[in-house]
C-alpha cells in the first residue's frame, strides 16, 4: 500500500513496510548509518541514524522504523544533530577510528564532534588478536555495531562463532570463554570481516600492508569475476594494488552471495601469490 509522509520539507510517497531510511534515501535525503547494512537485519544500536518524528518523545532510528501514513520526520534538526554529534564523540573517545570507513570520519567532521572533550575517559583497550594466518582482530577499534555477529549468525553464515559477551561498557565481541578462533566454531568465511565498518576485523594480508603503510585504497582497482572453487558461481570483487590481488570481497547486492563467501572464495586467491 502506498502512503504519504513528510520528510523535512517534502511530502513523499512510500510503501508500507519501508523504513524511514529507505524512503529518505530514495528521495535523496541522506541519513548517516553505522550499524545498518543492506544485507543485514537492522539492529538499531548505534543510534547515528536517529531522526525526529512528530509525536514521539525520543528520537527514532531511521534504519529500522517503518514509515506510517502522515508521519512528520525531521532528519536534520538541532536535536538530531546534537545526538549524532554525541554518538560520534562517545564512539571516537572510546575506540580507535583511524581505520574506519571514510564516511564515518567524514561525519565526525560534519557534525563537529570533539571526542577530545572526553579525553580522560575510559577507552576500550584490548590486545590485538592474531591467532592464525588469515585474520587480525583488533577490538580497540570495535564500535560494537553487531554487524559481525549478525553476519556470522542468522543473517548469513549461521556459524555463530562469535557473540556479544559481557554487559555495558564491558560488552565485547567474543567466542565462548574467549577461545582462540581456530579452536572455535569459526570456519573463516570472512563474512564478519566483510561487514566490519571500523577496521577492527581485517584479513592478515591487509593488516600487514596497513601496518607497513602500504595500504592504498585510492590506488586499488576492483574487478568483478567468478570464484573458481565450486559450482555455485559466487561473484568476487578482486581488489588489485600494484598489480597484485590484495583482497577479495563479494558484492552485497548480488543475489547469489549477498556479499558473503566461504573460506575458499575469500582467501583461496592467495595461491596466486
Amino acid at each position, binding site marked *: 500500500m502506498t502512503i504519504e509522509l513528510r520528510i523535512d520539507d517534502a511530502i513523499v510517497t512510500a510503501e508500507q513496510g519501508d523504513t524511514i531510511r529507505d524512503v529518505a534515501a530514495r528521495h535523496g535525503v541522506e541519513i548517516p548509518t553505522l550499524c545498518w547494512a543492506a544485507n543485514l537485519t537492522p539492529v538499531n544500536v548505534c543510534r547515528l541514524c536517529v531522526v525526529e518524528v512528530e509525536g514521539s518523545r525520543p528520537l527514532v532510528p531511521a534504519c529500522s522504523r517503518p514509515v506510517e501514513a502522515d508521519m512528520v520526520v525531521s532528519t536534520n534538526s538541532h536535536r538530531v544533530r*546534537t545526538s549524532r554529534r*554525541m*554518538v560520534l564523540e*562517545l564512539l571516537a573517545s572510546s575506540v580507535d577510528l583511524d581505520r574506519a570507513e571514510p564516511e564515518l570520519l567524514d561525519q565526525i567532521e560534519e557534525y563537529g564532534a570533539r571526542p577530545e572533550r572526553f579525553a*580522560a575517559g575510559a577507552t576500550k583497550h584490548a590486545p590485538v588478536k592474531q591467532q592464525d594466518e588469515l585474520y587480525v582482530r583488533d577490538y580497540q577499534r570495535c564500535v560494537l555495531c553487531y554487524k559481525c555477529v549478525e553476519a556470522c549468525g542468522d543473517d548469513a553464515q549461521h556459524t555463530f562463532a562469535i557473540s556479544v559477551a559481557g554487559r*555495558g*561498557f564491558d560488552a565485547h565481541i567474543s567466542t565462548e570463554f574467549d577461545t582462540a578462533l581456530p579452536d572455535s566454531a569459526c570456519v573463516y568465511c570472512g563474512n564478519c570481516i566483510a561487514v566490519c565498518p571500523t577496521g577492527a576485523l581485517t584479513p592478515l594480508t591487509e593488516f600487514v600492508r596497513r601496518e607497513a603503510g602500504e595500504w592504498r585504497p585510492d590506488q586499488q582497482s576492483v574487478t568483478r569475476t567468478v570464484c573458481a572453487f565450486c559450482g555455485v558461481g559466487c561473484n568476487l570483487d578482486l581488489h588489485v594494488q600494484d598489480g597484485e590481488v590484495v583482497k577479495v570481497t563479494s558484492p552485497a547486492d548480488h543475489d547469489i552471495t549477498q556479499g558473503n563467501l566461504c573460506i575458499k572464495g575469500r582467501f583461496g586467491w592467495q595461491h596466486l601469490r
Partner: protein
Amino acid sequence: MSDLHVGSERADDAEAAAIERVLATTGPAVARVSARVTLGGMQATASRRHLLLPGLWALQDAVGWISPGGLNSLCLALGVPPAEGYGVATFYDLLRTERPSTTIERRCDDLACLLAIEPPIPTDVDAVESSPCLGQCDRGAASLIQTCGAPPRIETPDREPRVDAGPSPRLLRRALTGAVTSLADYRALGGFVALAAARTMGAEAVVDAVTAAGLRGRGGAAFPTGAKWRAVASETATEKHVVANADESEPGTFKDRVLMERDPFSLIEALAVAGFAVGARTGWIYVRGEYPEAYQRLVAALDESSAAGLLEGITIEIRRGAGAYICGEETALLESIEGYRGEPRNKPPYPTTHGLFGAPTVINNVETLINVLDIVEHGPDAWRSVGTHDSPGTRLLCLSGHVEHPGVYERPMGVRLADVIAEAGGVRGARPLQAVLLGGAAGAFVHPDQRDLELSFEAAHEAGVGLGSGVVMLFDDTVDLRAVVRRAARFFAHESCGQCVPCRVGTQRQVEVLTSERPDTALLDDLEQVMRDASICGLGHTASSLVRSARTLGVL
C-alpha cells in the same frame, strides 16, 4: 541453529544431572533414533532455546559456575551455539564463567544500604563483591550469599520490617498476617474467589472492569492496564502470553518482594485472571534472581494451585532472573525468557502485538496484577472508591533510608508525602530532612519544601517528578547527595545492557564526569540529551534524571 561446534570439554556428573533435569520434558534438540537416523532441525532448536537460562541456572546451582564443559554439554543438548551461550551467561551478574571462590558475598552498597544503621553482618565468606540494590532496603545492609552447590540466599540484619496496610487495606490485606504459605490458608483469606468470579463474568467483562477501574501500571510507566489488556484480547493469534514482571530491581524498591513472599498465591491467581481475560494459555512469572525466598514461595504456590486443579486453561512457568536490572524492562525481560541476552527491543512494535516468542503479550508488574483481584471481585466502582480520580486505588510505597520505620506502606493514591513520612515515624533520629528520593535511581529528589506533595500520578507529574515504582527514600542533613548521585550513575553504568551507544558509553562518561573534581555541566547537558533522546530504552532515557534533579536542587 548453527553448526554447533563445541570444544572437547564436557559436563561432569553433577552438571550432566543438572542438564538432564532441565531437559526432562523436552529431551535434547537432536534425537538419535538409530545409528543412522537423527531428528532435529530449526524448529526443534528454536523451541528449546527458552531453556537456556534455566539450564545456566541449573549449572550455576550445581557447581557454582558455568564451566566450559557444562556450557558445552548444555549447548549441545539445546542446540545453542556455545558463543551465544557464553554471551548470555556473561550478561548476568549471578552467573559466573570463572571458577569462583567457594562462597561469595554480594554486599549491597546501593543508595539505601549506604545509609543503613547497622554495619553489614560479618559472614564466613571467601570473597566480597559490591552489589546493586538487593531490594531489602526495609531491612538494611543486605547481602546475597552465593555458595557452590546451592541456590543463592539473602542475609540481612534480623530486623522485622514494617508492613503497614493503612486505612484501606487491599494489596497487603493478606500479607499483614504474615506469610500465606498454604492453599488452605489462602482460600480461608478469600483466595481464588476472584478467578471464579472472572470465569463467571466472562473474559470481555473482566477487561471492561479493569478498564473501567482506571488501573494504571505500578511498574513505573503508569500505562493504563485496561488498554493493554484490550489490545491483546483483540488480537486473533492463537498463541498469546501473560507475563508477571517480578524482576523488581529499581534501587529502593521492595514492595513486590513483600507481596510475593507473603502472598504468593495471589500473584498466581491474578496471572490466571489476566490469561483468562486476554485469551492467553501460557503465563510466565519472571522473578528477580536475588529473591530466592519469593521464588521458592511462588514455586510452591504454583505447584499446590495446579495440583488442586485451579489453573485450568493456563500453564504457568516461573523463571528466575540472574542479576540484571535491565531485565525488568519489559522487552528485555521477554528476551531473557526466550533465552537471549536481556537487550531491550526497539519499540514499536510493542509486546501487545509482538511480545514473547513474537506473540501478543500482556506484561504487568506484580502490584498491578494483584490489584486486578479486587477489581474483579468487588467491581470497578468499589475499587475506585479510594484514591484520586486520575489515580484510583491504593499504592504500595517503599519507605527507606533515613526513616524511622522502613517498610511497605499501602496508602490511597493522593496521600500527602508528609503524612506518610510521619506515619513511618519521621526522619530517623529526628534529624532535619535534606531531600526525599521519589521513584528510585531513575526518579528525582524532592526538597523538604515539597512535603505537601500528593502522591498521585497527576500531582507527581505536575511537580516534575514521578512515582515510579513507589520509592520514598529519605536523606537527612548528613548525607552528601553528590555521593548519592554518583552511586546512582554507577548503578546505571553497571546495569546498561551495552547495546546502544548513547547509554553504553554515555552512562560510563556520566560516571567519569561526575567523579571529576568539578563536574563539567556542558558535558552533563550533552550526555543527558543524547541518552534521553537517542537511547533504545528507558534505562538510557532516565539515566541522567537524578543528575538533572540534583542540579536543580543546586547540589551539583
